[in-house]
């Protein structure tokens, strides 16, 4: 089932809140690691694991290496959901 960008955004935001245990986090397409204090290299791994779990997908090394902001993460999820029907 393909997901709308908006749905992806909402669920992704929840993942960020879970991983950082902070209910006030609100991410947008342009959010980068530099915008969130908690988003360090270690939390980055937890974040990736959590996103994969939430959306039932698996990122490739290339995809993770090229992720620069939240929008790009949404792109990959959207594409992957589209690809897998």
């Amino acid at each position, binding site marked *: 089932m393909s997901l709308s960008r908006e749905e992806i955004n909402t669920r992704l935001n929840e993942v960020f809140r*879970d991983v950082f*245990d902070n209910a006030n986090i609100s991410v947008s397409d342009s959010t980068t690691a530099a915008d969130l204090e908690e988003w360090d290299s270690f939390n980055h791994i*937890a974040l990736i*694991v959590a996103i994969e*779990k939430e959306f039932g997908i698996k990122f490739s090394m290339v995809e993770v290496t090229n992720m620069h902001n939240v929008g790009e993460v949404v792109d990959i999820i959207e594409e992957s959901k589209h690809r897998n029907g």
Partner: protein
Amino acid sequence: MKELEYPFEGGVLISKRKSILRKLRKSVSQSFLSKKIAILGGSTTASIRDMLEVFLLSQGIDPEFYESEYAQYWQDAMFGENLIEFKPDIIFIHTSFRNIKELPNLHDSVRTIDLKLEKGFEYFKTMWEKLISRCHCPIIQNNFERPIWRLMGNRDAWDLRGVTNFVSRLNQRFYEFAQTHSDFFINDIDYLCAQYGLDKWHDVYYWHMFKYALAVPATPLLAFSVANIIKSIYGKNKKALVLDLDNTLWGGVIGDDGVDGIGLGPEVSMGQAYSEFQSYVKSLKDIGVILTVSSKNEEGNAIAGLNHPDTVLHQEDFAVIKANWNNKDLNIREIATTLNIGIDSLVFVDDNPAERAIVRCQLPEVTILEVNIVEDYIRTIDNNGYFETTNFSAEDLVKSKMYTENTKRAELALSFGDYRDFLISLKMIAVIRDFEPIYMQRISQLTNKSNQFNLTTKRYSQSDIEQVTVSSEYIRLYGKLSDKFGDNGLVSVIIGKKKGDILDIEVWLMSCRVLKRQMEDAMLDRLVEEAQKVGIKTLKGYYYPTVKNAMVRDFYKIQGFTKINEDSVGNSQWTLDIQSYNKRNDVIEVKK
């Protein structure tokens, strides 16, 4: 915490770790053990440390961590000064097959491969021996997981040149070391990787991106396993199973179906499944787990079921059987009282979710197996590590027998009008002596397990006990007690430190199964005797209150000590002048 019980989802635990940790941190109380854990890694260990923190907290252990710099496990173990300064209580060495320096190849001769094996083993052995002499603390060492690829396919398993074969031989060498060294424990990642699924475990993405030797979502499983070893070392294993009968130990309802109608035995699939579960439960007895029953049944029906021709478990396998129509929380409370063990050391197994819900609500300390069908029972109990066996003493093999004997003693006590007459009729014999090598493990186990009759709740690893034993600064006593019903084994420990003509009693503990038998008097008599020999004039006792040791708050008073000090939280100090002392025990024959 329910989400931390097997089966858990590693990925979910990683996503929700922070909020779980926050809740666990709130539950930390004075009864938690503070432990310093050093993690020496051959690959990235951050996620393992984080998950270990979560699992240890859920077991009542508040950890402080030390982590080696990336992949510096060996250098750190051999030469690291910071590690020594940290003074670890436990060292965990997280290595994987990627840390094996020289693997065999197809050009190697048998001799070359043997040399590589020897060298590979020596590399680790040197490190362990160095750690043992530098840190004197328990060491937990990963064995090796199955390698990622099999160059020769199936042949890799048996051909000496196969990496798979080499790794399994190296593991055998590790096990031989474990068999000959106490306080050295293997964390079996060879099992864990199979359980998790080798393909997923070896997701090399995590290696190439972040230098994790296993998939990050598998790190909770690994940490869970390490936490189980640690909590077992510190005596935080569960002690008893409380089992339902109908649809738990056999299929069907015996009150309705009759003893011939229940599903048990080889005739049908369901019966086989229950029989296998009964066999598993019976073998738990051998590792010292106490078995009990709480069943909503007429007692006669319950007993009839345990006399079924195909039953593996019999009435005498259970220390307590509660078959009645009372609420189960009530029965469970009584079981804990009868056995004199904490409610938090019970595991409750019942197929009925409603019964489980009542117990969870009334007795949240009880561990409840969330399983509805017989085919999941064994796997779930087994993988939760409730009874992880790190120290296996001779006591464990016969423990449930001791509890059954205690029930007989209680029956006899009722038939005597005078309690002292009862004690004399028991014909008790005690052996009270200085520590001896064969009992080191049991003594350490007792210092870690005893919570109620324990004046200072000071915990000792086996290495600690060995150090105390070789030091001339201490007077040490262990006490064993037997009577006409059987042997209670080693049940009491005292460690006193000499300071001039004063003896500081750092440890005084006793197993609750010999309460009210005057064993404490016999121990004091012997302590005074040994103390007088070396010119001690005063015994000094300490009581440090915990949530569990209120029963010994006035212990020293009862033993004739005088309180000299008590602070605002109830820590008290007591002294006893032993220059003139009258023996207290007159019912136990004491052998030195």
